[in-house]
């Protein structure tokens, strides 16, 4: 693979991860948001795949397949099931409206470029130059956690954070040992399953998926 093609592919895939993250803030339909999450999972798998190809690393290739299976297929499918159980959560109810969210996202991206400049300067390469995008994904995910009301969007926010962390890991270290990656990816799956059960049960018991209505639970 030629170097220019490698760099181009890597930049495209990484950019797609961030674009998907920002799209989740833009769209109101929860179904669309889950689709975005799926696309992000696929893009993440592509990043891992491109890196594996470039480094000729079999472990990373397996990781890419694993990411594709879990984050591209399994997790979105589980989330779809939650949405189907809860007709009220068709639309997200943002605490901060969409235009303001997008402006904030832009601000967060700038912040992540500023704060990671030292990090990239340590070992400048095609991959490490893209680290700010991973950090930006983490921040956007966290922002979503803070500003979205529905339980499903909360899960999506958490997954965005996780995807961002995974992206940073891939770009900085060209993949951690397979066993670690296996552990963390399966962890995410477990978290989603637990949250799914929790959300469905809470919904059945309290008739609501809105976290703001759980306020009286504090001590």
């Amino acid at each position, binding site marked *: 693979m030629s170097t220019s093609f490698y760099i181009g592919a890597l930049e495209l895939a990484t950019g797609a991860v961030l674009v998907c993250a920002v799209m989740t803030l833009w769209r109101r339909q929860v179904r669309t948001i889950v689709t975005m999450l799926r696309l992000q999972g696929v893009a993440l798998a592509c990043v891992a795949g491109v890196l594996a190809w470039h480094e000729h690393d079999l472990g990373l290739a397996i990781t890419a397949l694993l990411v594709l299976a879990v984050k591209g297929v399994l997790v979105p499918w589980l989330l779809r099931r939650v949405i189907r159980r809860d007709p009220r959560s068709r639309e997200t109810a943002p605490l901060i409206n969409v235009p303001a969210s997008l402006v904030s996202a832009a601000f967060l991206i700038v912040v992540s470029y*500023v*704060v990671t400049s030292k990090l990239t300067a340590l070992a400048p390469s095609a991959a490490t130059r893209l680290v700010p995008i991973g950090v930006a994904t983490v*921040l956007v995910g*966290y922002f979503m*956690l803070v500003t979205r009301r529905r339980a499903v969007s909360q899960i999506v926010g958490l997954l965005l954070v996780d995807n961002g962390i995974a992206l940073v890991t891939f770009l900085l270290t060209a993949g951690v040992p397979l066993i670690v990656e296996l552990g963390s990816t399966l962890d995410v799956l477990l978290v989603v399953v637990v949250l799914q059960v929790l959300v469905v049960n809470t919904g059945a018991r309290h008739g609501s998926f809105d976290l*703001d209505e759980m306020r009286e639970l*504090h001590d």
Partner: protein
Amino acid sequence: MVLFMAGLGCCVLGVVAATVISLERRVIVVTLVGSVGCLLTFTAASQVLVSGRAESFHSSLVLPLAGINLTLDPLGALFVAMTSFVGVATLVYCVGYARGELRSRSALSLLLVFLMSLLVVPAASSVVTLMFFWELMALSSMLLIMVEQRRRVETRVAAQWYGAMTQLGAASILLGLLLLSTKGGQTFGDIRSHVAALSPTLRSFAFVLTLIGFASKAGAVPFHVWLPKAHPEAPSPVSALMSSAMVAMGVYGIVRVGNDLLGGGTLWWWIIVVALGVVSALFGALHAVTSVDLKRLLAYSTIDILGLVLIGVGCSGALAASGHPRTAHLALIGALLLVVSHAAFKGCLFLGVGAIERATGSRSLDHLGGLIRRIPISTALFVVGALSIVAVPAFSGFTSEWLLLQGLLHGFVGKSSPTLIMLLVGVVALALTGGLTAVAFVKVIGIGFLGQARSTAAASAHEVPRTMQIGMGILCIPCVVLGVAPGIVIPLLNRAIQTGHSSSVSRPVETGIGLSLVHLRGAIEPMLLLAGFVVIVAVIAGANSIRRRPARKVEAWRGGGDRPTARMQYTATSYAEPLQRVFADVLRPEIDVEVTHAVESHYYEQSLSYESRVGDAIERLAYQPAIRAVTRVGLAARRIQNGSVHRYLAFGFIALLIILVVLA
């Protein structure tokens, strides 16, 4: 060291035994294993004291990262031996005492954990080891206070106070010791070799920090508030261990850090120690006089005896700092001997109160009376402890306070005026405290054991099980032996303090059977005193038997009233009332007098009720406002927490952003 480790192993075995053995045999097995452990550690410590050679042990397996460092040097060995001795007595006592909650798995295993940590603390020779076992000691004793928490809610309040105070103290000690180990190495050896390189300000800072922590453990005023709450609420064996062994660890810490690790220090450090001691001694003694609850009285008397010890330690340090090593040694020997004999007599007294509580169901003096006829053996053992604490000659308290006083009096040769003033105040405090302690224990014996029973429970008291008496009896042995033949322990104490001071002076006290001070005028022969006393008693008894007169029986004068009843006797409150009146400015008693007049005439009184409460003035004036302030801040902080998940997440998010921006 093998014996010592084997002893600790026995304690661990006892913890295991406490959890697996069924209820019927649990107490006897656990106490047996624990006692064997204590005997082993006692032997190990005595060997070190006799030979004067320190032994060490290091293992990196027990505690992660730092490992465990133990060194049994003579100073530590003295405290280990003392703790082991009290431990054996307490465990034997437990065989008869343990009932209900104290027989549970958790309580018995905690008791052995507490005992083990008490044994390790004086042997610890690194900061990590010391702090680990210090915390273990604090936490296990805190849980032991709460053993009866289902039945008595007040134990929870006591444990809360104790927990807060002991954690603040531990934090202060940790900070101080960390300051000392900044130049490398956290073992005591490293600290000793590096301490000279530290700046004097840093050393002083470290000393003051550790002093606060250790003094609060030793119950020094104003850090004493936990003590009169915690000691009364714990089961009696636990109170005995806490009061005789755990409180002594505070003194150990001050001597270890001040004399050993920091190698003496400057004059003003020790003036602070003496000031703490003087205030505690007087405050404790005054409260002991006015207390009606027996355990509370003993708790306050712990504060006063430990105050005397601090006076001794402080004066010793000050004398050493101003160049009088001989008198410094004398005062330190007196102080340490007082710690040891305090362990014996206070342990005996606390166990004795446990026996009274078991026999009558009450520990309030106003419900007791006439116990000498109902429980004669327990009374005799309690009286031995009481004679010892009021420093009657031929008992251990006398010997130690005599040595302490000699140390202070012979220090007057010094010229520096702060030292002179300090010594003078120390001597006066020692004398006044001695007098007040005597009043307190005359009250206990007179009101509690003599006279008529003030309640039906006291009138029908039964003698306690034999093992409880044996437990108290074991602790009476040192009370008498140290009083009659102090010569046998003084050489060991001489060795124990050699670790402390850098300039080693050979033997300030010459010992035969009695004691005489080297190069100073002063000697006592308790054996001769005792012999003289016996001769005088024999002569008087003989003279009486020669001219025997028949006893005349007459009725007591009762002022025209009816037959005297038990309620006409002196009560504990009325006995202490004059002193309470004299010291009203310090004690701040709250007195309610309520008079109900007859309907017919204002001049006739139908009933009269009198109530006086002596609260802790320091707690009321210093601690309560602080607690209120903290509570107010806490309530204000709750406004931030409204239960919204989003708000909590936003806090995290903003904090993350701030950290990122600051780091970039």
